[in-house]
């Protein structure tokens, strides 16, 4: 039974995850490249959350994403990219599995002031076999490290791309996404040389 549908063809949806520690800039990156204002379910960080969230180094952040937020990028008529910021706190990991299912890949945002915060994300994607790139969000007051130093600290596999970015900057964030899709493309051609 084929009911008539609206004139617009139904695009293929592609899901990309943006992960990283609390305050690493996930929402910022999604907002920088999304064509819509990121749709979000946010809950403000209240007295109950202080103490739960380790705020060292990110004192000025007043809210945290406890559900998820997402943005959209329409590529032509056929493809829509959805960028999902993953919940940044350990107690919301149960949402991840659902999100990661069928995802094209992930961007792990790292904050060099608190590098350890992105370890769980890297572990998670390595374990799942989800392709990912690590993007070091260069905060103004963070001391700069060389790519090699960060790579060593994260104990990254040689083939995982490491990029430097400014999550507030659209071009920079676009470059991160392009880096991810190129990485996925490289992996897929490596798997099935044709």
């Amino acid at each position: 039974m084929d009911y008539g549908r609206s004139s617009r063809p139904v695009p293929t949806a592609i899901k990309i995850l943006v992960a990283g520690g609390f305050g690493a800039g996930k929402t910022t990156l999604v907002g920088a490249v999304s064509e819509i204002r990121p749709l979000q379910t946010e809950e403000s960080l209240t007295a109950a959350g202080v103490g739960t969230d380790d705020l060292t180094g990110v004192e000025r952040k007043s809210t945290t994403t406890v559900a998820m937020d997402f943005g959209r990028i329409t590529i032509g008529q056929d493809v829509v990219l959805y960028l999902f910021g993953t919940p940044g706190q350990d107690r919301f990991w149960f949402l991840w599995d659902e999100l990661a299912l069928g995802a094209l890949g992930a961007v792990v945002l790292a904050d060099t002031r608190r590098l350890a915060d992105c370890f769980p994300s890297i572990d998670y994607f390595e374990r799942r076999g989800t392709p990912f790139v690590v993007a070091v969000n260069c905060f103004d007051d963070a001391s700069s490290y060389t790519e090699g130093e960060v790579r060593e600290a994260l104990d990254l596999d040689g083939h995982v791309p490491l990029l430097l970015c400014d999550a507030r900057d659209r071009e920079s964030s676009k470059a991160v996404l392009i880096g991810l899709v190129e990485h996925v493309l490289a992996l897929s051609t490596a798997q099935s040389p044709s």
Partner: protein
Amino acid sequence: MTTPPGRHAAGQPDRDRVERQWAEQQRADQYRASWNEHRNEHRNEHRDGQSGELEPLGEQVWPEQRRGDLAAEPWVDHTWVDRDAGPVVRPYAMTGGRVHPASGSFDVVAMVVANRAALQDLGYGLQPEHRAILAYAREPLAVAELASHLDLALGVVRVLLGDLLGQGLIEMYHPPAAGELPSESILKAVINGLRAL
């Protein structure tokens, strides 16, 4: 990371704590009782025409406490969820308590489109939320976007979508299955599309 004492502490409820909470509750009940007594006296005074403003009848107001302050309600022993977790049960009232869709499975980026049956209003027993979904889904829309527009939890939207799918009012377009990468040409199109943004 520091773990705040007690919040994630698992284990048996210890006896002392239960006793303390019980005592706390007794005190609260006493306080409430004496407060009510005071109010009633006050009201009588007013009726006698002696003094005081007219206070509205009705439920007694419990002294204001900061939200999320668990210590304000020591008799509530839900360490796994506090008030700031938001409504955790009510959203599912509109699904009649159902938490699993009757039919279908819905990824967050699965596309929903209302079909001709929906446009001709052939559905039956539809709630306002069902109708709202159909209205939004005249153009293809991802499940996550629907949930966001309707300000409903994803789980609730999935149940409602299951109802609509069961009645043949919507069509679903699923994203590539897990483990199945989009074709090389799509990936290249995405890279070029991103560059051109």
